[in-house]
């Protein structure tokens, strides 16, 4: 990890950017107490897969200010707003310095170690929609001024979608400026399901923090927990047995199929095809049955633990999984007949909401969305973990970048996931399913980052420990946040009805965005 002074950070990052670090993997706000408030940047090269970590800190707690890196990576736009929200660090040069999750009338910044919770009782007043925002600019003499910025003009026609809307897949809110039917601008409001999971983790022991990961992106429950377990195991220097690696990989892939089936169902329902919704859910229940027999849970499984898994696989697990794959292969063809070939589906999806490869990388939109734009961003291929280096599978990449490509990538990934499972399911080695760990797990001082391929992109965990049994800071690289941040770019010029198709194919899960 490289530490750089705040005065030089922008220059240093710009240099790294021109060296080829075009992917901002994660941007984490930090409160190091006496060492000041700061930011940790995780950068990656898409060409070689190299990574580097840069950090910076400012000692001024009253008015902490850092230069914005929005001009280098678009992903910084939402992430810096998040850091402002959590820590109160103002980013000079950021075009829109509003809070991202909390209400504008929230007092203080909750992730600071000296935050006083009693300042913010429940407010039942309705929020005022904000049409103006502000940004901070540095004058040549070094002083900083606040400038007003207009999001929506007085005479613009604005439609509000959400937070209660069936097509936003949860409680996401868009404010859309329209010209006739064409979207001129889109403003995303997050935070309606901001549960403060990261902050809560700071007062939980390591095994306790695991429970909350499942509830982030509940359609990637296994992946999320896998990432955190991997991160803690990395910090402990704990090797898990090969049996555990097999089980985790199979479970991850089952979860991916589960998530993609739900994606298929919900997308079809959003576009008005109710039959396909029932098909998808019917088959999804079969996976849930398999999960239930082994883990005891349907949606939230709490299966991975530090050093292994909660319980050994059920006696009929192998048989059930094989039966399921034998069932799903022909059923997928049926899906394609019912929906993929449908002329209405093509009309709604083809050429709609095109995301370019450059934008996908700049925003850090990983997962199916990135791969549909031609960016080979699969963590399973780039940084193999668990059993992925030993299995043979194809990374599905399309180049169109439109809604249909995003849809097809996910449908084809179901097939690839089945291929992976088939390669592993017969050879699960014998061994223990849980390594012995100490009763109280304490991590050494340091920081670690580990990532897995979640159902909808790279899910990363950044963990900083000070040698306690609690994490000092635990940050989850949300898979959904980059996905909503592309919405403004992708939707401009599209029709209002396309917003539903784009939102459906981008496939975000809102609790994962808000955390």
């Amino acid at each position: 990890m490289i530490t750089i002074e705040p005065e030089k950070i922008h220059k240093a990052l710009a240099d790294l950017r021109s060296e080829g670090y075009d992917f901002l993997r994660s941007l984490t706000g930090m409160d190091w107490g006496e060492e000041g408030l700061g930011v940790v940047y995780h950068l990656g090269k898409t060409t070689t897969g190299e990574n580097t970590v840069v950090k910076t800190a400012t000692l001024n707690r009253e008015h902490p200010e850092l230069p914005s890196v929005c001009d280098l990576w678009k992903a910084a736009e939402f992430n810096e707003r998040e850091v402002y929200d959590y820590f109160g660090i103002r980013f000079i040069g950021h075009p829109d310095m509003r809070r991202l999750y909390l209400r504008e009338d929230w007092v203080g910044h909750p992730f600071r170690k000296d935050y006083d919770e009693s300042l913010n009782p429940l407010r039942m007043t309705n929020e005022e929609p904000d049409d103006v925002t502000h940004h901070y600019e540095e004058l040549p003499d070094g002083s900083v001024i606040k400038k007003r910025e207009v999001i929506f003009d007085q005479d613009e026609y604005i439609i509000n979608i959400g937070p209660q809307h069936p097509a936003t897949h949860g409680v996401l809110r868009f404010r859309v400026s329209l010209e006739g039917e064409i979207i001129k601008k889109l403003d995303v409001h997050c935070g309606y399901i901001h549960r403060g999971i990261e902050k809560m983790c700071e007062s939980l022991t390591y095994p306790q923090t695991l429970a909350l990961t499942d509830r982030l992106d509940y359609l990637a429950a296994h992946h999320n927990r896998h990432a955190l377990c991997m991160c803690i195991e990395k910090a402990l220097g704990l090797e898990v047995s090969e049996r555990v690696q097999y089980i985790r990989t199979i479970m991850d892939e089952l979860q991916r199929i589960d998530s993609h089936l739900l994606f298929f169902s919900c997308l079809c329902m959003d576009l008005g095809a109710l039959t396909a919704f029932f098909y998808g859910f019917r088959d999804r229940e079969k996976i849930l049955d398999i999960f239930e027999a082994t883990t005891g849970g349907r949606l939230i499984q709490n299966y991975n633990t530090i050093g292994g898994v909660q319980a050994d696989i059920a006696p009929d697990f192998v048989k059930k999984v094989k039966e399921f794959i034998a069932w799903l292969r022909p059923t997928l063809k049926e899906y394609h007949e019912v929906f993929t070939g449908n002329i209405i589906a093509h009309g709604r999806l083809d050429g709609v909401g095109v995301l370019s490869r450059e934008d996908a990388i700049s925003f850090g939109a990983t997962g199916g969305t990135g791969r549909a734009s031609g960016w080979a961003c699969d963590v399973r291929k780039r940084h193999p973990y668990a059993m992925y280096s030993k299995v043979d599978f194809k990374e599905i990449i399309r180049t169109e970048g439109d809604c249909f490509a995003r849809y097809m990538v996910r449908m084809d990934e179901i097939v690839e996931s089945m291929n992976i499972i088939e390669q592993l399911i017969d050879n699960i080695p014998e061994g223990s399913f849980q390594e012995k760990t100490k009763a109280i797990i304490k991590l050494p001082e340091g920081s670690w980052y580990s990532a897995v391929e979640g159902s909808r992109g790279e899910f990363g965990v950044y963990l900083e420990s000070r040698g306690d049994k609690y994490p000092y800071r635990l940050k989850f690289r949300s898979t959904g946040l980059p996905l909503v941040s592309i919405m403004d770019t992708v939707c401009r010029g599209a029709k209002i009805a396309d917003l539903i198709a784009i939102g459906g194919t981008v496939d975000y899960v809102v609790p994962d965005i808000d955390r």
Partner: protein
Amino acid sequence: MEIKKPTIKGIPYEEWKNNDYLEDMVRQLNENGTNVVVGCLDDLINWGRSNSLWPLTFATSCCGIEFMAVGAARYDFARFGFEVTRASPRQADMIMVAGTITHKMAPVLKRLYDQMADPKYVVAVGGCAICGGPFKKSYHVLQGVDKILPVDVYIPGCPPRPEALLYGMMQLQRKVKLEKFFGGVNRKQDKE
């Protein structure tokens, strides 16, 4: 005439878990007697209402997926009259609060509830909606929807299984069967 015990086809009366509070409601309603004509009309309306409760499509997080699963092919709540979910609160009879309610969402939820037409019912689904659940210590989570709405049925679980959701929804049906729309006041149970 007397108001009868609330029964549901398929499950015998003794197998329901909490009968006592419903029996208490029956006793209260029977205290002053009921007119035969009005009582029969009440029966008819309650029969209709309890078998066509339309929920609002409202889900904030994990429980929402289970709510969708209950609506889908295997569990299919249309069998019990929950038929269709409505996207507009003005057309819905009940709101299933499925998922965590945060401080930012609380005023929105209250507004949704206010927009619904009477008679309206609230079901709190899952630990989060009941008391904050696993997020009880969070700075941004409402500690139970009963702080802002009158809740009729609580369905515990994290998330509750579809069977539990169905059981809870049928409990609500039994409660709906005990209402007086003519010649009486609808009672909500007082907090003790």
